[in-house]
């Protein structure tokens, strides 16, 4: 009898110790993250995980590679089905879609305004993209500051230098473009037909968008947009801008050297440097500015994404702490990811670091990263709004109609009505 009692006691003790061990093991927290680019944001996340490992060794970052379109599909399905348990703790969101998602799915994302993250350390225009109704919903990440990348050898052939393109207007750009076309046979610019990206970058350069402060559609009466359309049409008609069919063809015009330059978000550098033969032949400067628009500037933005924290996360506090110590607090992180990914951040303290001031071989020794960081600090702030994608598509269609010969005012009127219809009463 005694024996069995002592055996029981021993067993109980073993179990008690065992379960303690189990408890100690479950102290390990796993933060799941959805993002999509192995060469860039996944790589950045991996480096951030390494940095945070030293601060909180029990936190494991589990990165799930998910392309943006798929992130949106999965997010929509999970929220609409009420099964947010399938969502990650953190996901990377396109800035273009942020306002829409925050507004359409209230309560899905953690309001980070009072989380202790210092948003003043990020570029102002970027914080504006991640703010909805005055509340911050995302930790800003990559930089989409617009650059005008030009082939120095082609410019030289036509008697120009990179400096001729600095701080210029679109009229001056078109004049030089016509001259370069005549002398070298190469257009200054290429763009995917029907893609509104170029138009959007030009709009933001004047601090204007397709919606006014009240969120109402602002297309048909938008004089800045009209000025842009006129410039765009003139560029296409004069051959300064050549429209291509798809993205692959667009990249091909850069890599083959059939165009003298391109204007896009600074992330286009990643595709430019892919063609090793062109090393030393490229330079970058700021983009041309509008003339009639009141707040015209030589700076804009194209694309970009930011980190949001999901409210459904059981360890949202850990997720926030992780972001605060890495993407919103570690210059070291940004110094690590820049050289191999070439992708720039919007975290301003990183811009002062030596790594950002290194000359870039591919760009003939130009300090491109420092230049882009400078551009980013001057990009006009705008809010993209809930119906951003609808408006972009409508304006894209209008441009195609205008190029085919339709009247500008009626095409823009039609675009405005389309967006209004999609927005509902």
């Amino acid at each position: 009898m005694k024996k069995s009692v002592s055996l029981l006691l021993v067993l109980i003790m073993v179990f008690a110790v065992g379960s303690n061990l189990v408890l100690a093991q479950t102290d390990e927290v796993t933060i799941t993250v959805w993002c999509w680019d192995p060469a860039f944001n996944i790589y950045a996340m991996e480096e951030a995980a390494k940095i945070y490992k030293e601060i909180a060794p029990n936190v494991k970052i589990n990165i799930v590679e998910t392309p943006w379109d798929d992130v949106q599909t999965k997010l929509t399905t999970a929220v609409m089905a009420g099964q947010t348990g399938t969502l990650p703790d953190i996901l990377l969101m396109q800035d273009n879609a942020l306002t829409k998602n925050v507004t359409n799915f209230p309560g899905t994302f953690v309001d980070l305004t009072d989380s202790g993250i210092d948003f003043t350390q990020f570029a102002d225009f970027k914080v504006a993209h991640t703010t909805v109704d005055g509340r911050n919903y995302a930790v800003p990440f990559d930089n989409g500051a617009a650059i005008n990348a030009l082939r120095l050898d082609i410019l030289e052939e036509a008697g120009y230098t990179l400096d001729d393109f600095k701080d210029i207007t679109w009229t001056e750009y078109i004049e030089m473009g016509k001259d370069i076309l005549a002398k070298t046979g190469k257009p200054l610019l290429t763009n995917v037909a029907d893609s509104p990206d170029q138009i959007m970058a030009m709009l933001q350069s004047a601090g204007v968008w397709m919606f006014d402060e009240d969120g109402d559609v602002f297309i048909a009466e938008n004089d800045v947009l009209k000025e842009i359309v006129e410039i765009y049409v003139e560029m296409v008609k004069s051959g300064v801008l050549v429209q291509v069919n798809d993205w692959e063809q667009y990249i091909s015009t850069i890599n083959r050297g059939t165009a003298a330059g391109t204007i896009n978000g600074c992330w286009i550098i990643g595709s430019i440097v892919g063609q090793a033969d062109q090393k030393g032949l490229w330079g970058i400067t700021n983009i041309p500015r509008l003339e009639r628009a009141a707040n015209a500037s030589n700076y804009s933005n194209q694309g970009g994404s930011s980190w949001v924290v999901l409210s459904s996360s059981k360890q949202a506090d850990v997720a926030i702490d992780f972001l605060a110590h890495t993407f919103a607090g570690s210059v070291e992180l940004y110094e690590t990811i820049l050289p191999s990914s070439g992708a720039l951040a919007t975290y301003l303290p990183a811009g002062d670091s030596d790594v950002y001031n290194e000359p870039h071989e591919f760009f003939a020794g130009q300090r491109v990263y420092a230049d882009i960081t400078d551009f980013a600090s001057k990009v006009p702030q705008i809010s993209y709004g809930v119906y951003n994608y609808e408006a972009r598509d409508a304006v894209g269609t209008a441009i195609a109609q205008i190029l085919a010969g339709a009247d500008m005012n009626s095409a823009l009127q039609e675009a405005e009505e389309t967006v209004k219809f999609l927005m509902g009463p």
Partner: protein
Amino acid sequence: MKRKLFKGLKYLVLLVTSLLSLFPLLWMFVSATNTSVDILTGRLLPGSHLAENFRNLLAKADVGRALWNSLRNASVATIASLVVCSIAGYGFEVYHDKGKDFLMRILLLSMMIPFAAIMIPLFMMFGRADLLSTTTAFVLPTVSTAFLIFLFRQSARYFPKDIIEAARIEGMGELGIFFKMYVPIMRSTYATAAIITFMGAWNSYLWPLIIMQEPESITMPLLISNLIAGYVTDYGALMLAVAISVLPTIVIFLALQQNFAEGIISSMK
């Protein structure tokens, strides 16, 4: 002479159209051996970067796992839906009455509902049943499709009813008649149905995307979509991944194509 000229012209047209439809496939295989920049600048000759693309691809994605997942999911889906739909199609035709005809009509109507419309309710059902990221979840919604049932019902219509009667008189059970007589004779229909189902399951994207939540359950189409997500796409690795993902479908198509022809010949004997 005129006839010969006409025939030659006919072959020329056929040759051009078949070249046109084969060209993308050929370009894909050629591109798998070229670098990203080569592909974008329009190189049409085979290059020497196959090994490099292969290394890059393996570094970026777990191709082995995705291939295995796709193969397993598509095989289970094909076998399960062939069994279920052929029995259903046979039943609708052989034991047919007014009620079943009405049911068949409703089934055919269900073909008109786009998948996107039932996606969210389906996702909720599988989520509550705790079946996310499983092969069961992948297969179940497509096990019984109106199209396949219709295909089998149509082919059962040309199955000689006298043989069924004769077998019944000889004392064969209904299941025996189906498995021992109908299935062997209808091999060609099975081959067609298998090709259609396998290709559908192999290429399916939207449903696996939302139902396969774990990275371990990734399939080939999802893997390819991952490869084009970044700011910079490695077209060499991408083309290699697409080429790899196309191979099993080509093999299965060719294998069943053979069977398909045999089936027709043997059923005509």
